[in-house]
């Protein structure tokens, strides 16, 4: 942070502040600096644009999708893209508009992955704080949970869980977030351990600050950057997990579309290359959104953590 201020030789900090006032020098906030670094990374900007397009499609799905996602038309099945101006991306085996299903699929994908992120971050902050700050029993419990969850064969366990709780958006979110939080909790714990014995925390404590105050005002700001970076890399994983479960038939419930389900449904028709487009479209969308998020994550890492090696590129 010190590097942001102009070098002022032989002046105490009081003088430096006074000079700042005289010349109306405005230091850039950390967020502004991060945005500057982020902007330089072209791939990250591409990622941001891809993500924003899908987020827009997902948020406005009821407005922008030309047809309801479950409207079938048995007179217009298997229309290839571009054949019928009403169905830009064509129709599937039941005559449902693929563009509409794609847009609603984006909504499902984003809702599941972002909600899972919310759950995972909350659990990670809670358990990471408890075990890092208080140690002892909490630390022991977190380690045991980490071991058990780390030993669970992810996909097999998620399928079993989905069988028990049934298909649906909320259920998928729960199934994929339950296994995802211990890694982040360890990250939070490590950050808390690094900072909790620092002088500024001791000073705050000796001035009578409560534990909650120290956590929110002193520890959280030091955790937030690595957490954002870790989360931006976790989101593609959640998207892939949802698509994978739906692909196997243990994910989103009918008639709601999901990209994974759209890819899985084409399996029966793979004998003819004429039907391939029905699978290609959601597959490309899936790959694009996931790549968008990870380009974004790379950019965020370089912007928020200048010491990482990519920042030197």
């Amino acid at each position: 942070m010190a590097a942001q201020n102009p070098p002022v030789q032989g002046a105490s900090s009081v003088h430096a502040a006074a000079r700042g006032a005289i010349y109306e020098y405005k230091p850039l906030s950390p967020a502004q600096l991060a945005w500057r670094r982020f902007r330089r990374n072209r791939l990250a900007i591409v990622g941001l644009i891809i993500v924003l397009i899908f987020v827009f499609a997902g948020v406005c799905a009821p407005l922008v999708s030309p047809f309801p996602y479950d409207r079938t038309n048995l007179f217009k099945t298997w229309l290839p893209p571009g054949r019928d101006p009403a169905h830009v991306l064509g129709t599937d085996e039941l005559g449902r508009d693929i563009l509409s299903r794609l847009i609603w699929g984006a909504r499902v994908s984003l809702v599941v992955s972002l909600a899972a992120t919310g759950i995972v971050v909350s659990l990670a902050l809670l358990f990471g704080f408890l075990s890092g700050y208080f140690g002892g029993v909490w630390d022991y419990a977190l380690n045991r949970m980490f071991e058990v969850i780390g030993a669970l064969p992810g996909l097999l366990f998620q399928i079993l869980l989905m069988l028990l709780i049934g298909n649906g958006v909320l259920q998928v979110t729960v199934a994929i977030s339950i296994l995802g939080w211990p890694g982040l909790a360890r990250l939070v714990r490590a950050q808390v351990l690094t900072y909790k014995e620092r002088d500024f925390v001791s000073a705050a404590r000796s001035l009578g600050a409560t534990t909650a105050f120290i956590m929110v005002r002193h520890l959280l700001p030091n955790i937030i950057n690595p957490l954002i970076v870790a989360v931006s890399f976790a989101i593609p994983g959640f998207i892939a997990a949802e698509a994978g479960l739906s692909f196997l038939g243990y994910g989103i419930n009918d008639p709601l579309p999901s990209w994974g389900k759209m890819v899985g449904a084409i399996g029966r028709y793979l004998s003819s290359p004429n039907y391939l487009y029905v699978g290609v479209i959601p597959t490309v969308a899936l790959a694009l959104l996931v790549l968008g998020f990870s380009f974004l994550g790379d950019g965020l890492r370089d912007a928020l953590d200048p010491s990482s090696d990519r920042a030197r590129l």
Partner: protein
Amino acid sequence: MARYILGRLAGLVFVLLSVSFLTFFLMYNTPGGPFDEINQPLSPEAKANMMRKYGLDQPFYVNWWNWITKAVQGDFGISYYYPNTRVIDLFSKYWGSSLMLGFLSVAWSFPLGVVLGVIAALKRNTIVDQIITTIALVTVTVPIISLIFFGIAIFVIGLKWFGFNNGQPLYQQPPNAWVLPAFIFGLGTVGALARYTRSGMLDVLGQDYIRTARAKGLSRAVVIMKHAMRNMLIPLVTVFGPVLANAITGSTFVEIAFAIPGIGRFFLESIYTRDYPVIIFTVIIAATMLTISNLLIDIAYTLIDPRVRLGGGH
């Protein structure tokens, strides 16, 4: 060392008890049961008889404990769906294909990933580096179902180079049946390894002893091969465990898509038929492989790098 290993083994026992308990809880509370025939339903009396025979009229924790006491004696029960067949026999029938797929995919992807990572680090900030890091990012993040679909669309349907499996074990098949699955399954490992190696190599290349070696007048090639590579390879040991465990237990999607009779596919069939003994055995085997590979890796790590102390430095 011995004390540490004993401690870890005790941890392993706790983990396996927890995992099996969770699995029993999920299985026994899931709607539907192993004897709910839809086409030829059993009479209620016969069904009750079957349920009693297999102990299914008892709560799940009773069954869990019974299973544990038998499992420690090496008895993992018989399948519900294939009567009079031991679970272990069924498992070993499907095991080979998954094992082969996993080893094939690791065999090509692990070395290639390391080589690509080293090249990227040495050619840092050049176009070569950018191409490698971008390819690595793509293969790591694009979901396996997308990779599978692209692979099938291009190589099976478009170019007709490969076919689907005919349901026979993979090791009884010509290369035509396993080249593409092994290729697709290994892609993610290539990317992960390349990224990991690249950052590890960059770390090492920035160390003082590398600069010292260069300053002494050693050639670039010698410094890279003798000083940098050796130290870069040490952290790779830690990734090998998870990669191998994933290779052997994580091929479900590839097995489904290519009709390979492996463990993942068999697990899904057992879920469909609610074949509890098979389900619990598959989960436990996968969990054991994951934890044991982690333990072995930790031990191997200390043998390679004496600076690392086990168990928090006592």
